[in-house]
């Protein structure tokens, strides 16, 4: 049977547009045979917003599936390895208040739930380092692999930190040169629809009318198709996550040997939190905040004070910032007729767990693997997609909120509001009750393909020193203790063997990474 859906038009370039194009082209077409025609209409005048400099480990698979050389990606996108997140000052804001949410799972996670066994030692041992080898590596700014490891292989799981302004053009070149994606550099001026509102074509300034069977709205905050054409209502989540602004800065390293962080560091402040991301050539630092709780001058002061600790007052005071606004929430429907929203046009929340790029990848992979054959097939896919991604957005909101509600901080209105019961989703309240009696684990999930694995819940819940009343007898104590010892040995071994992030990235610039 011949597919009736064979022309995909992606409106908007940027990270969302090009990742989506790349994933679709790599999955649906082969170098020999182009079954689906994929075009990206990218406005030359609208600068990409460049959201999110952090990815999940899913990005390794995404890049690999597109046939991208990891060494070239790292060097050309100023990218570094991200092995998870470090949350500083979230529990009480005192010195030494920090915990890791690493990308590697607790050891033998699918075989044994180590949380109850760790729990007896919680006063002397932190959860993440006891069950996982990654925090030790991160603590020393070490890389997750050695130069002899093949591309995308690792000793500790990783994603990336990257310069979004370099990443989008990098993927664009790969898409157009290797994957047969058409790049139309033009501006969309009008949308023509079928009688049933489905989009028939978009009209561009210089390339005339571009017809398509499936349209993907990657136009970012403009929401050209999903908002302007279909007028899908926006589902605000500001009642749960009230951070609605950010100040962002590019921070130079003090010298070319300065260490590159292994994690995104998120440091809690009295009115939000500061992200700190280490790229190869600079840091990306920013302060997310709630405009209802603080004004820009207070946030700017926080940010400069934070930076002064690492670069000194003089540099800190000299840096310029950019203000961004965040409207936390997502579209009530993401797929309408023959149009699906991916990226910022679909929604956005504060980048606490770097979900933005991950959701782009997941959306594009869903579309590619469930690619509709005809309009009636598409209607089913659309319904299922909407259900799935509404769940996922809700999971993001719930998981981000989890980071706040376990805090003991009450030092400002912001933290009082962030922790108050009225600002918590009901589903999260239920989970928190559940976890008072049992550790987060696989079986407490109500959905398959949970966006954040149960391990993530464990790392946050126990990182924040939350309590569980374990009543179950713990039968495998000896085995668990052996795993703790093994983990400690592995941690030490890796700390001794792994190069620093800086050293490995410099080597990759020089020698690349082998495919095998």
């Amino acid at each position, binding site marked *: 049977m011949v597919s009736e859906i064979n022309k995909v038009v992606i409106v908007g370039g940027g990270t969302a547009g090009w990742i989506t194009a790349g994933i679709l082209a790599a999955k649906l077409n082969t170098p020999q045979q182009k079954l689906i025609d994929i075009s990206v209409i990218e406005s030359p005048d609208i600068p990409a917003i460049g959201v999110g400099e952090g990815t999940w480990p899913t990005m390794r698979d995404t890049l690999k599936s597109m046939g991208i050389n990891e060494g070239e990606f790292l060097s050309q996108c100023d990218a570094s390895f991200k092995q998870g997140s470090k949350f500083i000052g979230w529990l009480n804001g005192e010195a030494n208040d920090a915990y890791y949410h690493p990308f590697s799972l607790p050891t033998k996670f699918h075989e044994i739930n180590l949380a109850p066994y760790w729990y007896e030692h919680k006063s002397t041992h932190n959860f993440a380092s006891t069950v996982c080898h990654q925090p030790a590596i991160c603590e020393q700014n070490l890389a997750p692999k*050695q*130069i*002899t*490891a093949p591309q995308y292989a690792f000793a500790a799981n990783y994603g990336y930190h990257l310069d979004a302004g370099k990443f989008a053009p990098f993927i664009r070149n790969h898409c157009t040169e290797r994957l047969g994606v058409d790049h139309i550099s033009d501006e969309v001026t009008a949308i023509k629809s079928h009688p049933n509102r489905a989009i028939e074509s978009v009209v561009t300034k210089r390339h005339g009318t571009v017809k398509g069977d499936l349209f993907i709205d990657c136009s970012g905050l403009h929401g050209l198709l999903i908002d302007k054409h279909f007028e899908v209502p926006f589902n605000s989540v500001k009642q749960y996550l009230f951070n609605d602004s950010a100040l962002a800065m590019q921070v130079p390293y003090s010298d070319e040997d300065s260490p590159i962080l292994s994690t995104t560091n998120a440091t809690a402040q009295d009115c939000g939190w500061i992200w700190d991301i280490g790229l190869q050539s600079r840091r990306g630092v920013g302060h997310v905040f709630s405009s209802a709780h603080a004004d820009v001058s207070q946030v700017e002061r926080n940010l400069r004070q934070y930076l002064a600790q690492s670069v000194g007052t003089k540099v800190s005071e000299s840096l310029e910032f950019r203000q961004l606004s965040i409207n936390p929430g997502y579209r009530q429907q993401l797929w309408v007729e023959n149009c699906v929203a991916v990226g910022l046009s679909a929604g956005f929340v504060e980048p606490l767990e770097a979900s933005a790029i991950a959701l782009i990848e997941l959306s594009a992979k869903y579309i590619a693997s469930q690619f509709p054959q005809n309009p009636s097939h598409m209607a089913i896919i659309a319904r299922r997609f909407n259900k799935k991604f509404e769940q996922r957005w809700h999971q993001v909101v719930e998981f981000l909120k989890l980071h706040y509600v376990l805090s003991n901080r009450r030092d400002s209105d912001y933290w009082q509001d962030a922790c108050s019961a009225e600002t918590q989703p009901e589903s999260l309240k239920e989970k928190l009750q559940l976890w008072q009696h049992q550790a987060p684990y696989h079986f407490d999930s109500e959905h398959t393909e949970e966006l954040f694995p149960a391990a993530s819940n464990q790392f946050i819940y126990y990182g924040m020193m939350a309590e569980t009343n374990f009543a179950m007898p713990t039968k495998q104590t000896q085995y668990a203790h052996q795993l703790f010892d093994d983990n400690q040995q592995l941690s030490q071994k890796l700390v001794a063997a792994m190069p620093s992030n800086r050293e490995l990235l410099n*080597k990759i610039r*020089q*020698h*690349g*990474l*082998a*495919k*095998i």
Partner: protein
Amino acid sequence: MANPVLVNNIDHKNVKIDTRRSAELGDNVWFTLTFPDEFRAVQTHYPIFFQKDPNTGEFFPVALFGFAQNENLFLDENGWDAGYVPLFVQRQPFTIGTQMQTIDGQSQENRVLTMDMDHPRVNEEHGEPLFLEFGGNSDYLERIAGMMETLHLGNEQNKDFIACLNELELLEAVNVDVQLNDGSKHQMVGFYTINEEKLDQLPDDKLAGLVKSKYLFFIHMVLASQTNISHLLKRKNRQLGL
């Protein structure tokens, strides 16, 4: 730690190089770097594999002498029991150094002969002198100089050869499993070899390119050399009295 110095006929007029083959003189290595122009001689005696440089991740071909670190199965009380000793072993204790030189106001990098003064071969009693009575180069030193030039070209040749193998994705990881006569098993990891299946499936134009560059010949030498694993095994069994 190596202590390389520039070879010269003043500081080193009495220096001799002990050219006997023994573990004490540093021959207890289980593999050495090799290069395509040497493959024909090497494959007569030793298996050729590829390894990754731990500092750069780049591949290089090696000739294998044993199954574990410090094990050279070709060494016995009479020296090195094989008709050919690879040049990267023979060149010890010499290395190629670089020196900046200014010629007509232009600075350029020159290759110079350096020697590891802490190497056990370096002494003033036994072996080949570097210089003649009045400071002229000995035949031995001339031979070494020629050898170092060959090795330099060998390194360059490796770069092109490896780049070609990478380009055609002809390398694959291989675990070398050996079983001794007493049933004990040894596995060596971190080795790579030519993927024969991929080689067989190369399109004609690529194959023609490999013939023309002579790389196909070198590839076949590598593949043929692997039967030497069984010779190594025989030596190992014999050494253990098995």
